[in-house]
């Protein structure tokens, strides 16, 4: 540790004002505060402050996502070997360790790719805009990795990351200024750019021995076509997450654990979460009342719909993004309810998109400022009335 500290102090003058590498000061600053506790002190009077800052908030979200990441790695392996088993290539499922190893081989490169490409974009903008590298990307990065299928080509991941960070965030002025959720922007980019691969109806579960791609229909894809769901896609399995899908979103249970961590830490808003849950449940239930065909996607019922696809993940991690969601209390209810209701409408009524959570949340992101505007206006009006002016 002493060695690291000495080295950092040794190169510090190079980056400070007048140094040779002054341009890259903020890159150095990021490295310094990553390795050492900051030695900066406020130069005016003392302020009593809470120790929760942006850094801690972001790390909490990453921690809350750990169950999803771990389960995603395991599930990637599980889906791969299940597909091989169904194909008759292996006799029996291997042990858990094998699955985790296989999953890690596919998932870790995706996560690394996202962080490296995103980090480069962030670094460039930090140098141009002369601000510190922001911790927000820690969350965006892992979110992008969690909402793509495990065997996505890495160049597509990095392209999507660049698009998400650059167009979704930096164009609007960086962290805290974005209108849309950058991770969902990246996902939407993939969705529209490579529609044959990533539209939510099928995912690759890996490669067989001849390096041929095997893909499996997701429950969502089957249901959208009106096929009956097989035994393996029971509600319980969907809740636990042992179904094919994107890396981190299959397990509703892992998302709930993450959600509880976020709620206890006070990072995410319970109003948004509950609003979205109510909206999704209500609409899935209402639509199911009108369906007659038992295999129809509408007839699956509200509980299945909440466990299926990316609804739980979107609800816990995407919709609650404090920047792009509504900020007033009532606004959060409306925003959440809208996101839940619209995702069910997209999913069930619109046959073109098997999954609608992403588009629904993006749509509500766009409406969030409008919702806030009217909530604030209504509040002002109410108070004026009360005051009798």
């Amino acid at each position, binding site marked *: 540790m002493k060695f690291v500290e000495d080295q950092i102090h040794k190169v510090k003058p190079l980056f400070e004002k007048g140094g040779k590498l002054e341009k890259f000061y903020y890159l150095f600053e990021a490295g310094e505060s990553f390795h050492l506790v900051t030695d900066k002190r406020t130069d005016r009077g003392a302020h009593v402050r809470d120790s929760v800052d942006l850094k801690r908030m972001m790390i909490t979200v990453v921690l809350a996502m750990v169950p999803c990441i771990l389960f995603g790695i395991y599930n990637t392996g599980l889906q791969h070997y299940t597909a091989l088993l169904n194909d008759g290539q292996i006799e029996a499922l291997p042990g858990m360790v094998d699955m985790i190893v296989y999953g890690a081989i596919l998932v870790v490169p995706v996560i690394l790719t996202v962080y490296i490409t995103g980090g480069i974009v962030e670094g460039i903008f930090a140098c141009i805009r002369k601000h510190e590298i922001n911790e927000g990307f820690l969350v965006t990065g892992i979110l992008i990795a969690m909402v793509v299928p495990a065997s996505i080509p890495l160049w597509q991941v990095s392209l999507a990351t660049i698009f998400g960070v650059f167009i979704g965030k930096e*164009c609007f002025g960086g962290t805290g200024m974005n209108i849309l959720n950058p991770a969902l922007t990246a996902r939407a*980019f993939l969705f529209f750019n490579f529609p*044959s691969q990533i539209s939510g109806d099928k995912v*690759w579960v890996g490669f067989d021995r001849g390096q041929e*791609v095997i893909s499996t229909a997701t429950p969502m894809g089957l249901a959208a076509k009106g096929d009956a769901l097989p035994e393996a896609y029971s509600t319980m399995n969907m809740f636990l997450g042992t179904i094919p899908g994107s890396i981190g979103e299959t397990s509703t249970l892992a998302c709930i654990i993450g959600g509880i961590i976020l709620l206890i830490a006070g990072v995410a808003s319970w109003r948004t979460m509950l609003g979205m849950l109510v909206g999704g449940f209500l609409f899935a239930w209402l639509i199911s009342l009108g369906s007659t065909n038992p295999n129809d996607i509408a007839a699956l019922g509200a509980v299945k719909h909440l466990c299926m696809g990316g609804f739980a993940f979107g609800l816990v991690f995407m919709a609650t993004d404090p920047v792009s969601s509504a900020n007033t209390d009532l606004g959060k209810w409306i925003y959440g309810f809208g996101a839940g209701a619209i995702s069910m409408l997209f999913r069930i009524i619109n046959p073109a998109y098997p999954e609608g959570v992403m588009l629904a949340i993006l749509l509500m992101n766009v409406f969030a400022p409008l919702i806030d505007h009217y909530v604030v206006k209504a509040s002002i009006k109410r108070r004026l009335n009360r005051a009798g002016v």
Partner: protein
Amino acid sequence: MSDTMKAFKDPFVINNPIAVQVLGICSALAVTTQIKPAFTMAVAVTAVMGLSNLTVSLLRKQIPNKIRIIIELTIISTLVILVDQILKAYAYDISRQLSVFVGLIITNCIVMGRAEAYALHNPPIPALMDGIGNGLGYGVILVIVAFFRELFGVGKLLGKEILTSSPDAWGYKHSGLMVVPTGAFVIISLIVWVHHNYTKKFED
């Protein structure tokens, strides 16, 4: 700088119809999937704008103020029909690709806007230059957008294959986003961003 040169250069760089005035976006989304039709469209719009500005400017003292819009429209639609007929006669394939959008030049806000804002109050030569400048300013953006959309959307430039999409899972794939109008929106907004940073012209 003389008035004429200013009338020509201003819309081309500083007051670009697409990047600054945000006019003519509809056709910029519709005809920019390939370079060839985009280029043809640019030439057609430039011709219509130059001539309509010239004609309106020549008639500016005769046009009664109350019915000026209808007269401007008559002039513009005459020119558009001329252009449409010429395209049909000499470049039938491209004319078919452009389909209704040649006819829709009539409704292109830039043509009408320049006739109203500039040609009605200025002598013929600067008006002609203003029309051509605006047309070229519009056309340049159209061709830039079409360049990116054709290159990344179908991997071609002017119909020649440059990038090959491969069917295997890890290979290069053409971008579906560039084929749909959304792609043009993204490219145009990036151009606007760069342009505003370059000219330092920001709206409050």
